[in-house]
């Protein structure tokens, strides 16, 4: 839909391009920064620093050595990708108990996150943080991504990733502000109620296609304000509030003009 946006709003083309450029740079940066933390490039110091951070911030819940307790999962074998996802989205360290761990502003900077991930990854092999190239939306095929998203993700996350409800207060969040790296990590680690999509379900190339599709959704709708992309219910609310509201207002005005 890029070509489209450019054609439809000539005047905004520079702004759109600038935005895109920023987006891609941001995405690349976000992808690059933690990508140095893949298993190969971590150092023994990282693991040591991560171990200390873990003991101070995470061990109360996840246990010494991250082996888990009756309430919390063991982190042995969850891999660097799980830690990076959970910590960079602010879910971990968890604060409130609720239906699911909430997204918060991240509590650790990129370095600390990398160290935590390195420590957990050192316990047992698991999914690693994807490289920048693996999550680059410009390399993906958005059309193929759309098909994969529709069959695998839309039932929870809505057709364009606006989010949706699950049982008992759990929900699949909106995916519009999630970084490409986090999207990839979510697929390989399956946080909480979300299933894991391993390489047999969705290949790494297809994952990148999904990312391309999701990033494309951030451009808005050609039709005007997307009203939250929530579908017919929000459209109905607007029809009553704006449409019928304004028309009854006009009717009252016309009716009042007589007397």
């Amino acid at each position, binding site marked *: *839909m*890029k*070509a*489209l946006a450019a054609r439809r709003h000539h005047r905004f083309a520079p702004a759109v391009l600038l935005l895109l450029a920023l987006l891609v740079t941001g995405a690349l940066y976000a992808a690059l920064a933690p990508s140095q933390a893949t298993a190969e490039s971590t150092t023994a110091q990282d693991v040591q620093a991560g171990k200390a951070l873990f003991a101070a911030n995470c061990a109360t819940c996840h246990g010494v050595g991250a082996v888990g307790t009756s309430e919390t999962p063991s982190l042995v074998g969850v891999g660097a990708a799980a830690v990076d996802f959970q910590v960079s989205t602010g879910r971990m360290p968890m604060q409130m108990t609720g*239906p699911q761990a909430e997204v918060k502003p991240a509590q650790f900077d990129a370095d600390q996150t990398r160290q935590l991930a390195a420590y957990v990854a050192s316990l047992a092999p698991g999914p690693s943080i994807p490289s920048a190239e693996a999550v680059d939306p410009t390399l993906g095929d958005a*059309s193929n*991504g*759309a*098909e994969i998203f*529709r*069959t695998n993700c*839309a*039932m*929870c*996350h*809505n*057709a364009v990733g606006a*989010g*949706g*409800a*699950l*049982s*008992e*207060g759990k*929900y*699949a969040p909106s995916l519009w502000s999630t970084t490409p790296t986090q999207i990839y990590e979510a697929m390989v680690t399956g946080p909480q109620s979300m299933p894991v999509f391993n390489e047999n379900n969705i290949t790494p190339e297809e994952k990148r296609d999904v990312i391309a599709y999701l990033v*494309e959704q951030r451009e808005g*709708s*050609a*039709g*005007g*304000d*997307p*009203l939250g*992309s*929530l*579908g*017919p*219910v929000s*459209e*109905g*609310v*607007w*029809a*009553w509030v*704006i*449409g*019928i509201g*304004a*028309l*009854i207002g*006009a*009717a*009252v*005005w*016309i*009716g*009042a003009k*007589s*007397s």
Partner: protein
Amino acid sequence: MTTTEATAPAPAVPTTPAGRAADYLDQRTGIGVAVKAFARKVFPDHWSFLLGEIALYSFVVLIITGIFLTMFFVPSMGLTTYDGPVTTLQGQTVSEAFNSTLRLSFEVRGGLLMRQIHHWAALIFVASAVTHMMRVFFTGAFRKPRELNWMVGFTLLILSLLAGFSGYSLPDDVLSGNGLRITDGVVKSIPIIGSYLSYFIFGGEFPGHDIIPRLFTVHVLLIPGLILALVGLHLLFVVLHKHTQYPGGGRTDKNVVGFPLFPVYVAKAGGFFFVVFGLLALMGGTMAINNVWNYGPYDPSPVSAGAQPDWYMLFLEGSLRLMPGQAEVVIGGFTLSLNVLIPAVVIPGLLFTFLALYPFVEAAITKDKSPRNVLDRPRNVPTRTGLGVAFLTAFIILALAGSNDLIATHFRLSINSITWVLRFALFIAPVIAFWCTKRICLGLQRKDRELVLHGHEHGRIVRTETGEYFEVHKPLTEQERWLRVNYTAHAPLELSEAAYDATTGEKNPRYRKAKRWSALSRFFFQDRIEPVTPAELEAAQHHAHPAPELAARQPETDGRVGS
């Protein structure tokens, strides 16, 4: 303001070209009589009488934009490969219908605008028809002689729902396919004939290849044709019956007070058409609606979160979502899907039967045979108003249930508890709403009586020479009083049949039925507040001065009758 009795000026000899043309037409068609009669029709002024017009004008907009869309839409389920400008769909196999919808949206100049105006107009068409119906219901505009017009209106409502549904299904995207899938399930749940009916509708196993061409014919020809014809009949009835009017000084069941249709009303109505069209165009131009490229081409496997029908079908969706799934029973090898049949057929059936028959029920329990052209103030018919509010409550609860997932995510609630709360609310809330509304109406009526008898409070306290204090009340004006005393408070029907035949002593077969009607009538009119009679007013004015302020508040002067 004029009344219908006003006479028109004598016809002049045509001198202008336009006049001569009109005369030419008139001499050959006699249309002058109709135009004159029509132009002199008096239309009372009130904003709520414009609600029907909003529906009419959005229908006109629907036809105009719909004709445009028909020029480009391809009603076919044949497959093709998408190669238009939408990158997220390029190379996918889609149906011709879906493909042409995208072509309309992205390659036809103004196509997306037309599609969006059409869809917003559809939502507002049904919404205004419903609001118009509420006006007709709550003011009692359906009473004699307008019961038949109510039935015409009701048929129009059903046709609008069908029009909306058939249109929603045309683009062949995931959402519209889901809607058809549910329809298929509902049809199949009908005992015995269900599966045959489904094969008949879809031309084979769902989804088949026929449904979109069929729905297309229904949507662009059959239903608009019927709506057009019925709207004509509906308006003809309005002209024949003359419009109703709100109560007020000088307005009776035998006259109409308002403006002649021409020129005042025609100007107003014409202007209002452009207001409606303008607003719909503005909405179509700025607010995205039904972005089918987001949902993707229909394929029976995916269902996305937030898959819902347009608002006017949401009550059905909600009814299905509320129904516990365990109700499916198997009898002798045949499955009876009560879990679908009850929410999708029985509940809407009950709701719509209530709507269709209400005027006739009310006519039966009031035995009111005189034409009623002055509208009721809703407070003066507490039970009807209460029932209307209860109906709306049930409808809204079902619509909320249809949006339970969005309520859950937006208000951070558990979808399970929402569903359970709404399951109970569906049965309890309408009763509470009925009771509260009725009490509020009775309260307002009592306040009216109080006002008529004692006038407005003035806030001026006077002390008499003997040291007594009293407040001076300002009597109501004629207009204010007229509004408050001119209504009929129907009394419950007397039982018209005896239990036993007086001579033979046998049971009277008609007794039970009569008893049921009389019970219904009692339910309606047991609690009522009689309007102030002239005698009461006289009496009140007589001793309204200094002392009996308190006495006037005694219950015996409260005109309430019954329990």
